[in-house]
């Protein structure tokens, strides 16, 4: 529980810093923050085994930190520097780490779903006992390729867990306005894929559901869908003024359902740690994040020679 708390706090502080750097002009382009949704990725990651793959869309900073990628490398990619995971050539939406089994970071809404399904196919083909966890949002849930993937995943009983991060808004369009069936966990029904709704603001509930889904997929029963009911506090991207919802709505969730505050309360109640210890932890995390920002600022821009590298694998 403490380590989950720490992981969630790292994501929160990292994203706050990223937002700050964006405001300073150090991060450019699109930048989609994960603030509010931290319990989803941290709870799921806690249910995975070494070697399981993770793939997601463009709101990906949290996933990268949760899989153990180095905050320095992630932040330096956000600033487009040589020290970034893609050496500055990918940016916020396109980062990868083969070492940490993080397969991106995909900028086209829904494109990661067939890709995650294909990763699961490679696991089954190799009989390596690994599963693929494929994250997508409530917006991507309306893309056709998601259902093409569901169909194939079930036909072939591929070891994949689909995690729908339902943060209620596809950019500015609420689930109610975009989806004829708003219970997204039911979207697998016509493919015979079991699904369940999970309180995505509660890291413990997320972890328990993910453990069950992972076991289902790993033991050869095919795909499983988890709909995580969650919420993003910030706009869709940094340039989104979020006029489609009220300040009160955001404040209400923030004050009553915040995943980090919720975890903190449980930790204090159970006596896993006291206020002082948590404050100390927060301070350590702030230092990690501050260091990553320094690294991301100081790392040089990519050498102009990099322009023509990595287009094709030579030889």
């Amino acid at each position, binding site marked *: 529980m403490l380590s989950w708390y720490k992981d969630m706090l790292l994501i929160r502080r990292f994203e706050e810093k990223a937002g700050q750097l964006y405001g300073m002009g150090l991060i450019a382009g699109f930048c989609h923050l994960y603030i509010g949704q931290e319990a989803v990725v941290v709870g799921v990651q806690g249910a995975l085994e070494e070697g399981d*793959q993770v*793939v997601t869309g463009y709101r990906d900073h949290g996933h990268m930190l949760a899989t153990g990628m180095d905050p320095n490398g992630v932040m330096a990619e956000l600033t487009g520097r040589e020290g*970034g*995971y*893609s*050496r*500055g*050539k*990918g*940016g916020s939406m*396109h*980062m*990868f*780490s*083969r070492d940490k089994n993080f*397969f*991106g*970071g*995909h*900028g*086209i809404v829904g*494109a990661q*779903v*067939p*890709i*995650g*399904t*294909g*990763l*699961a*196919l*490679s*696991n089954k*083909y*190799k009989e390596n006992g690994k599963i*693929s966890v494929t994250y997508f949002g409530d917006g991507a849930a309306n893309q*056709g*390729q998601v*259902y*093409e*993937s569901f*169909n*194939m995943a079930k*036909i*072939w009983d591929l070891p994949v867990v689909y995690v729908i991060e339902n943060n209620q808004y596809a950019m500015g369009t609420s689930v109610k306005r975009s989806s004829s069936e708003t219970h997204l966990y039911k979207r697998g029904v016509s493919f015979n894929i079991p699904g369940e709704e999970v309180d995505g603001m509660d890291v413990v509930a997320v972890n328990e559901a993910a453990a069950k889904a992972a076991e289902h997929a790993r033991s050869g029963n095919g795909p499983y869908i988890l709909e995580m009911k969650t919420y993003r506090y910030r706009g869709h991207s940094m340039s989104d003024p979020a006029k489609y919802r009220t300040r009160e709505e955001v404040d209400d969730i923030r004050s009553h359902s915040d995943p980090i505050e919720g975890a903190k309360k449980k930790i204090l109640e159970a006596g896993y740690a006291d206020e002082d210890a948590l404050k100390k932890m927060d301070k350590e995390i702030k230092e990690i994040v501050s260091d990553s920002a320094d690294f991301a600022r100081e790392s040089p821009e990519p050498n102009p020679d990099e322009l023509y*590298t*990595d*287009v*094709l*694998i030579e*030889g």
Partner: protein
Amino acid sequence: MPIEVLMPALSPTMEEGTLAKWNVKPGDTVSSGDVIAEIETDKATMEVEAVEEGTVGKLLVEESTEGVKVNAVIALLLDEDEDESALDDYTPGEDKPEAQGAASSDESTDESESGSASQKESEKGGEASESSDHKQPERVRHAQPSASDPEIPEGTSMKETAVRDALRDAMAEEMRRDEAVFVMGEEVAEYQGAYKVTRELLQEFGDKRVIDTPITEHGFAGVGVGAAFGKLKPIVEFMTFNFAMQAIDQIINSAAKTLYMSGGQMGCPIVFRGPNGAASRVGAQHSQDYSSWYAHVPGLKVIAPYDAADAKGLLKAAIRDPNPVVFLEHELMYGETFDVPDMEDWVLPIGKAKVRRIGSDLTITAHSRMVGYALEAAETLSQEHGIEAEVIDLRTLRPLDTKTIVDSVKKTNRLVCAEEGWGQHGVGAEIAAVVTAEAFDYLDAPPARVHQADVPLPYAANLEKLSLPGVADIITAAKAVCYVD
């Protein structure tokens, strides 16, 4: 008059077939819908049903006869009120051109589906009208390997192979060699391939490695990309590249770009293959050349072979390549046969063009099916006008072998770029630009382009012929750049 039973066309491109078996004999009564015979084409064995009622009078074609032309009369049925004496009165209808197919080789009828070029030639009355698309000139069948190709050891025998079988052999050999190679696509396994290119792969490799997908191009292209990220080596077959438009986001945004966007981490060793270009009388949505679409994209390799040896050697190379490769085949070439070196491991270099005909007066570039037209045009130019064309088969469109092209133009000083697709922003436009930039001072005439008419491909036979580029168009363009009337 007895009722004529004609050899049926069983696919848009079928021109002849083998009458494998008769299921009826003279004297049998048949009703419409009864299976009367079995016909084999190079793709499949199919049953022939009677379309009219009657008594079988006479079987005109024996069992196991090969090369029976479509629309040839294969049997005669007697009407209710007729007896066998009617057979004696029967003479093949003179006013029925379709019935002549069996006896003559009238190309204008038999080639009507795919022979746009031969039609144009016969209108022109040129010598090339003797040859059809399906009879490749001798020098093509025995084309010499180019300098970039691996040496063929002395004593290596040549095996006459259809393009579809060469492609199949390439996949089978690579699947034997590397456990990570597998094939997925629509009808690739149990059906044995919509165009029989994956024939018998299921039997040899099983359903783990030969995977039938639902009709879901966008989805399975992405699944293939994911499997490639997972270190497998998928061969994704599109039933045709027309359907790959559903999947083009995954091909370009996921397969082609991810290596770059990941700073070199995410190699995607995948082959997207299938028939590309105009088929025959299937209309605009099923007849399109995507060469320039894919050749436009950095991060992809794009191959479009002409003959069986190149199809095999380049597909093997594509499967081994660590990058995403778009491999454009041509439906109308699948049944063509060419010599393939009977070697254990025939692999050709990607990115190398092949000079198919040496000439001094102009350079003609072409790829895929257009290479055959270019060679035919070159023969006519030589025989009728004394113009010697150098014909370059591009083979790979990305990376483009500009050196071979530019070197050739520096020698010949004239250029015609032929392609089946649309001209605007096309392969020929690119080649013309490269040559103009790199060999401007050598050019004695502006480069000319031969391409499809700037319209969606029409269905009507005459309009389709007018739309597609053929031998006559290449000849016209070649004469123009040589300033010959």
